[in-house]
Every structure is written in structure tokens, then in C-alpha cells.
């Protein structure tokens, strides 16, 4: 897409490098364009990708035991190693997969299994939408594909990172892909040789996720208003879970609490 003189420059729009180098074409926005271009594809690829992979370490630590356990359970329910691995590779949703093998074992229909998965995953509509303002500088197709790697954990890590950093493809790919690969690999391992691996609770890994949520929550709270929103969300989600225990099955209590708490955050006087 050549840029003719006088054409409006849109920061973040992907342009061929030679256009950016032609000062006359677009002098006012040159620097911003260059930054945007660099942010999408440029020389920081390695650093950004490593930042993403390093940020994924706690996620990976938490996924290993969960993936192993899923592999073992899937195996017990009658799935072969390749079937269990295929499910993790194409689906990548912890809770939904546990529900699926539970329903498979109980003889549930395909429709029930797929609907249950949809219900468990509705919250990602909200998670994905909340990242939209951060992803403006990434081509939409690429950004949408990157969102396929969203989980509670990668979302939390990314949301904290994006408060102070620009979203880049290598960062998001590094974070999401390494988490994804650990999930698929540990599923394969669990389905294959899982019965030989000792109880990972003894290693304390059952607290990996709660510990990660805790530090991310601390990092994301930057003002009293954020603190107020967080407290409202905690009280509401517990209240809903207490009154309607079934909401814990698909975490819809978290969605309901988030919708109300975020609205309260907007309405509280600054």
C-alpha cells in the first residue's frame, strides 16, 4: 500500500519500511509510524518474545501438574494417548476438558459436551473484549488468532503487562505459545506415563495458580479505586457462589461479579 503525498497517516497502520524512510511522504507521523512498525515486527522481536516466555514460567509450572492429571484421567476414561493429546492441542481449556472427559465417562452426548464447553468459555468474550483497546496496533487477523491462546492465566499475565507496555506480537505469542505447549506436552506425558508419576500435591504445585493470581492481583491494583473494584468483586463472587453453588462449575459467578464491580468502578466518584 503506497502512501501518496497528503494521504492521512494512521499510526499503527502497517507500512512497508521504505515508505517510513521517505521523510516527505509522511513527515509528521514518521516517528510514531516507525515506532508502531517496530512494535509489530521490528528488531525487538527476540527481547519481546523472551519477555513473554519468561512471564509464562509460572503459568507453565501450574499447567504441568494440571496437564499431567488431565492426561491420566483421559487415559482412565478410555482415551488413547493421541486422542488425549489431540484434545489438548485443539481445545486448550482446562476446565472444559475435565468436564468433557467426565461427561464421556458418564455417557453424555456430543451436544451436551460441546454446550458445556461453550458455557464454561463464555467468560472469554469479556476477557478478549477487554484487550481490544490494547491490540489496536496489531493487524486484526493476527490479534484474533493470538487470542486463541487466552486462558485465565495467560489473560491475567497479559492484562498486567499491557497496563504499562505496548502489546506486541512476539510478546503475546511467546506467552501464549509456551503456555500452550506446556499444556499439550504435559497432557501427552500424563496419558503416556502418568500413572508412574507421584502425587504432585506433595510438591505444593496445587498452590501455583492461587499464588500467581495473588501476585498478579497485587500488581494490577494501582489506585484506591482499583482496590475498591477488587473488594466488590470478591464479595459478590463469593456471595453468588454461596447462594448458587452451581455457578462455580462454569465460573459464571466471576463474570457476574466482574460486570457489577467494573460498573461500580466507573460510577464511583474519582
Amino acid at each position, binding site marked *: 500500500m503506497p502512501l501518496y503525498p497528503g494521504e492521512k497517516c494512521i499510526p499503527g497502520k502497517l507500512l512497508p519500511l521504505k515508505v517510513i524512510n521517505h521523510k516527505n511522504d509522511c513527515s509528521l507521523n514518521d516517528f510514531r509510524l516507525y515506532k508502531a512498525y517496530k512494535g509489530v515486527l521490528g528488531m525487538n522481536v527476540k527481547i519481546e518474545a523472551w519477555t513473554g516466555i519468561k512471564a509464562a514460567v509460572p503459568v507453565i509450572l501450574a499447567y504441568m501438574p494440571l496437564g499431567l492429571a488431565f492426561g491420566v484421567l483421559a487415559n482412565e476414561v478410555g482415551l488413547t494417548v493421541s486422542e488425549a493429546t489431540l484434545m489438548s492441542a*485443539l481445545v*486448550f481449556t482446562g476446565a472444559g476438558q475435565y468436564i468433557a472427559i467426565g461427561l464421556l465417562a458418564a455417557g453424555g452426548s456430543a451436544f451436551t459436551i460441546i454446550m458445556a464447553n461453550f458455557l464454561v468459555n463464555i467468560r472469554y468474550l469479556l476477557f478478549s473484549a477487554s484487550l481490544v483497546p490494547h*491490540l489496536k496496533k496489531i493487524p486484526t487477523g493476527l490479534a484474533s488468532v493470538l487470542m486463541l491462546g487466552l486462558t485465565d492465566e495467560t489473560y491475567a499475565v497479559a492484562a498486567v503487562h499491557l497496563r504499562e507496555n505496548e502489546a506486541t506480537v512476539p510478546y503475546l505469542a511467546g506467552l501464549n505459545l509456551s503456555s500452550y505447549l506446556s499444556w499439550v506436552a504435559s497432557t501427552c506425558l500424563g496419558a503416556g506415563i502418568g500413572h508412574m508419576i507421584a502425587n504432585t500435591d506433595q510438591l505444593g504445585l496445587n498452590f501455583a495458580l*492461587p499464588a500467581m493470581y495473588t*501476585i498478579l492481583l497485587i500488581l494490577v491494583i494501582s489506585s484506591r479505586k482499583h482496590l475498591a*473494584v477488587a473488594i466488590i468483586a470478591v464479595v*459478590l463472587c463469593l456471595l453468588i457462589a454461596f447462594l448458587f453453588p452451581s455457578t*462455580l462449575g462454569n465460573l459464571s459467578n*466471576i463474570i457476574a461479579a466482574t460486570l457489577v464491580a467494573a460498573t461500580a468502578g466507573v460510577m464511583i466518584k474519582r
Partner: protein
Amino acid sequence: MKMELVWIIIGMALATGIPRFLPVAVLSRFEFPEVVKEWLSYVPPAVLAALVAVSILAPQGIVEITLANRYIWVFIPTLAVAVYTKSPFYTLVAGIALMALLNNLFV
């Protein structure tokens, strides 16, 4: 590989993929009003707070606010480490080590 299972897996892939893919694919072309952006900025703290609450106070899928819930006992020192160090690494090490200790002391 059983064919019915493959179809179930494909259905699950769509059911989990569409809610993740669609919002960014559809909404990216719009510039959100400021108030919507502000609202969306409260989503991460609210979600994280709710996730902390659920993972500590309902670790087995039912609300369990009792002294026997060891997640609560490990959470308190872990929170202190998180607040003082602001470091994911130290927080994770502290939480996992304390939980390992409790899990091995009281089987």
C-alpha cells in the same frame, strides 16, 4: 481414533475458540468511547480478585471458609510476600514451598 470423539473435539474447539476469537475480530475496528475504555480497565482487577477468592476459598469447587482449608493458611503469608516483594518469582516460591510443607506435614 474414534470418529465420534474427533467430532466432539472439533465441536469443543469451536465452542472454546469462538468466544476468544470473535471479540477482537469484530470490535477492533471500532474506537471505544472513554467510558467504555475505563470500564474495560476495571475488568482485570475484578477478574483477578474473583479468581483469588475462588481459588483460595473454594479450592474444591464448593465455598469452604473453615480453619481446615489449608489454602487460607498458605494464602496469608503468600499475600504478605506478594505485597512486600511485588515479585512473581518470590511469591510463587513462597506459596508453593508453604503448601508443600503443609501437604507433607498433614497428609
